[in-house]
């Protein structure tokens, strides 16, 4: 398999003669990280909330939480992306007007962030629910016996434990979120994968461009892994198997 690698391609000028190709990769990486970071905040906030209400004793809250999870879990992410970008603005005229007036990249960013954030929130909700339900029931009863209200039981007894337990599965959800952000290229957001394909199309050096993107994704995954492993060690609950001591 003889392929003539040409790594110099990254230092060639882009067609508009303003940048070199490696700068496009860096720009794309910037968008990937920005979309992932904002979506992560949405996903964690909404996911923790939805996961919590699914363990309460209010049937309508539980049903609402379950419906939320099933809704986002059973539609392909690509289709959800199209819904946020093409369909939902049609039902909200002010949003539609803003999307037409503004720089398209902001409209793409908003759609991508909402789509990825809420999609991931459903998956995080599932983990948080499992985390809370893995606690022994005695903890809840002990809280109630001490006269705490239900919100207080959650705030002071259940959630502090549950969050520490679910950190490992949340790590893999975070990695999934970063990988899934590449689907934003279908609505035109110029993130990392988008840029690497673009470089391939301009220069026909597809393999070099894809290799660069692949290496960056691997580095991101490894970094996220290390950071979360550190958080995991710090947050490990003593006495549990994962807690070591």
């Amino acid at each position, binding site marked *: 398999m003889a*392929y003539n690698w040409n790594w110099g391609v990254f230092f060639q000028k882009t067609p508009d003669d303003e940048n070199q190709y490696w700068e496009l990769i860096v720009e794309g990486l910037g968008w990937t990280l920005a979309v992932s970071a904002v979506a992560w905040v949405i996903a964690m906030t909404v996911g923790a909330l939805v996961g919590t209400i699914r363990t309460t004793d209010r049937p309508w809250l539980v049903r609402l939480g379950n419906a939320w999870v099933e809704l986002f879990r059973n539609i*392909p992410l*690509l289709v959800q992306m199209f819904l946020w970008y093409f369909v939902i603005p049609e039902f909200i005229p002010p949003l539609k007007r803003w999307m037409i007036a503004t720089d398209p990249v902001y409209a793409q960013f908003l759609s991508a962030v909402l789509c990825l954030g809420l999609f991931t929130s459903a998956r995080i909700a599932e983990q948080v629910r499992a985390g809370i339900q893995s606690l022994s029931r005695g903890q809840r009863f002990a809280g109630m016996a001490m006269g705490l209200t239900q919100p207080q039981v959650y705030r002071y007894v259940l959630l502090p434990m549950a969050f520490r337990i679910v950190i490992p599965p949340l790590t893999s959800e975070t990695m999934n979120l970063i990988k899934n952000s590449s689907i934003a290229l279908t609505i035109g957001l110029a993130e990392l994968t988008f840029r*690497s394909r673009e470089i391939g199309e301009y220069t026909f050096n597809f393999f070099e461009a*894809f290799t660069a993107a692949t290496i960056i994704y691997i580095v991101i995954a490894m970094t996220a892994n290390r950071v979360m492993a550190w958080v995991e060690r710090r947050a490990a609950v003593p006495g549990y198997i994962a807690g070591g001591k």
Partner: protein
Amino acid sequence: MNLDFSVVQGALPYLWKGMQYTLQLTITAAIGGLVFGTLLALARLSSIRWLSNLAAGYVNLMRSIPLVLVIFWFFFLVPFILQSITGAERPPQVGAERTAIITFIMFEAAYFCEIMRAGIQSIPRGQVYAGYALGLTYGQSMRLVILPQAFRNMLPVLLTQTIILFQDTSLVYVISATDFVGAAAKIAQRDSRLVEMYLFVAVVYFVICYGLSLLVKHLQRRLAVPGRI
């Protein structure tokens, strides 16, 4: 805004063709991925160091890059590899639909590998020893004793992964293959009816995936190996 779903009705035959491709891709990738994934799992659990490292490297690579990027990789890699195997003058025209099948088999193998590995590791070690004590070879004890149990234990997870695969195949849209979403997108753009088309696509996927996930839950209760958790 006015919704006009008659556009969906007119496009149904074309959408059905797209759905047939989606189903074909899902089933082929699930079977191919399971076979290849099981072999990968055996390689990962093998005591031959280089073999298990190779399998682990492959699985970790596939799992750390986005599926969209994997699809792009194979889209350009498959014609290139075929060309260097056949020694043809120009890269053969493979087509997006066929490259997608190869891509998804290779990609899903990494995920099925992890499921099968967990399944094999969930079998008590005594079962392997019992197999050896009966005079079975490694291949026989795997095929006749371990894998059937691992497969049964993992069936609900394998099916759940297949539902995810069914949703993920929609990403062949990025290489312009005409799957269900691809067909809908083409009609939507031709008729400028994006809202109706994409809503219809979302509802179809939801009904199928939700129905299948209920079925898997039911199966999970039915299929538990008696006497084990």
